[in-house]
């Protein structure tokens, strides 16, 4: 009996110590470090114009990328689960691609397609559209890396819900559009929300892909994660910590949202 107890305690505290060393202590220490010189420097660096511009750009990419990926994700999940079209496995594999590709490679590929010497670079430039080193490139990079989340969350939910309710709605005279809004969407809403939260988290924090396609022009094409790097490399550690803290708070909010949703979902 005591041996069993010992094993259990051993396992518990070993696992917790690992988590503490890897996650909790570093995060906590960062908070302390941020406020090392009091609150004033933190406030100052938040209100720095470049910092505000970076935050604005980050939010802008989120506002564009998340709705697009959400619509796509739902459409894609419906196609994968509810239709029996051919080539489904190809779509299935393609959706997972962003999970398998290094963010740097994502950035590189966008440069190759839309860059100055890329496939469409010249044509786009002729039309006066600059993609790489500009906002569209950042948005494309963010869309790419956060593309699978909604579809991946919704697919299992759709499978679990089954199509009974949709069929029932159909026998009651409901058309496809009405059925989608009144039956399908409410049934998968937690899956969708979960996917949206994950997409948002990834879109907010993407660094690698964005760092390749962004010109890193302060105040213009610098997202918050890029701003963190620049601040750090120019030895403005308070600025780096503060921006990091903003991102970390957003991440914690994401975690909280995920937990609330999971609880809600389990309640139903």
């Amino acid at each position, binding site marked *: 009996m005591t041996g069993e107890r010992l094993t259990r305690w051993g396992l518990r505290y070993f696992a917790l110590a690992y988590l503490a060393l890897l996650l909790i202590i570093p995060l906590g220490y960062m908070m302390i470090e941020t406020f090392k010189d009091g609150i004033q420097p933190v406030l100052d660096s938040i209100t720095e114009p470049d910092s505000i511009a970076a935050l604005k750009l980050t939010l802008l990419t989120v506002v564009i990328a998340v709705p697009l990926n959400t619509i796509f994700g739902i459409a894609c999940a419906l196609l994968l689960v509810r239709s029996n079209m051919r080539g489904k496995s190809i779509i299935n594999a393609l959706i997972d691609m962003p999970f398998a590709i290094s963010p740097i490679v994502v950035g590189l590929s966008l440069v190759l397609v839309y860059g100055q010497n890329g496939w469409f670079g010249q044509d786009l430039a002729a039309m006066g559209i600059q993609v790489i080193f500009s906002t569209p490139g950042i948005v494309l990079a963010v869309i790419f890396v956060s593309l699978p989340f909604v579809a*991946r969350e919704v697919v299992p939910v759709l499978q679990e819900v089954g199509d009974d309710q949709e069929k029932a709605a159909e*026998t009651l*005279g*409901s058309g496809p559009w009405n059925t989608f809004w009144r039956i399908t969407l409410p049934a998968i809403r937690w899956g969708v929300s979960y996917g949206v939260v994950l997409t948002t988290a990834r879109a907010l924090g993407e660094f690698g892909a964005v760092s390749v396609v962004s010109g890193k022009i302060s105040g213009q094409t610098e997202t918050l994660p890029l701003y963190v790097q620049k601040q750090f490399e120019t030895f403005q550690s308070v600025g780096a910590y503060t921006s990091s803290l903003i991102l970390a708070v957003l991440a914690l909010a994401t975690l909280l949202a995920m937990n609330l949703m999971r609880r809600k979902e389990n309640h139903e």
Partner: protein
Amino acid sequence: MTAAKNHTEVENGIEVIDVSKQFGDFEALKDVNLSVPDGSMTALLGPSGSGKSTLLRAIAGLENPSQGKIFISGEDQTGKPVRSRNVGFVFQHYAAFKHMTVFENIAFGPKVRKWPKQKIKDRVNELIELVQLNGLGKRYPSQLSGGQRQRMALARALAVEPTVLLLDEPFGALDAKVRKDLRTWLRRLHDEVHVTTIFVTHDQEEAMDIAEQIVVMNEGQIEQTGSATELYDEPVNDFVMGFVGEVNSIGGRLVRPHDTQVFPNEVEDSTRVEVDRIVRLGFSGRIEMLTDPDKREIWAQLTRSELETLNLEPGSPAWVKPAPDAVTREDTGALEAAVTAESPATDKPTPSMPGLPV
């Protein structure tokens, strides 16, 4: 004009003409023809995989027949989407709209049809009363018992005043007691509402209990259509005989247990068996026997005095043969094949990947 008219002998009700349905290589329905009289209650009876559910879904429009036509109230339904057929369909597992209350579930059909608000309200309340869910209108399906959910599903299907009511194994997911109550209740409801009703079941007792017409199906085909008495007394083949009512297989023929005669000594055309168990149930009783040499179980239903007269003991030999006027059918093994083909449900949901961001 038209083939359609000529085919239709019944103006109202349901007419199924030469309907076939393939799923890949599998033939779920083979040239099925069926007439369901207006206002009647019909049971589709058969083992699983017999095509009964497919036929029901084809009538509803949930499956498109590969061939053939279906008429409802004399109107060709070919190519007509489910939503325009005005059928009420009750699903085996209720298909309750989980995010809607009982009231909202029942109101769904009328809302889709854009009925005026007050009319919807009146209709839903009327139905809630009809299916005895009074006071539960604001509950969610998860807060209802199985039987209550099934009645809600029924009310939802009836709300739009459907031309026909189709029920797929309506009591399949319920326990024995609730099943029994609910089916008597359904019968009474049908007498009140009088909507043409078809229900699918694999339970012969259920079919015989409440249906006016029973359609016995096997391997995608209709074996026989008739009343419970007709099927029991004049089965067209061994499959129907075995599926509707109890049977023994004696000397290559199927015979009912109450038509099975038992003798203590060998008589002409009899088969030797060994007595396994004798069960006395008040006035009547039964002898359970094992055939020789293949040890198949058969039994005879006898009166108490017959049992006394025979005076058999477990282990002692006996001889059986069908009674002279008994209904018998040649045993082709069709029943056994159909029943052993039933496989347990294997559609376990595939465990999904947890949402893993990279």
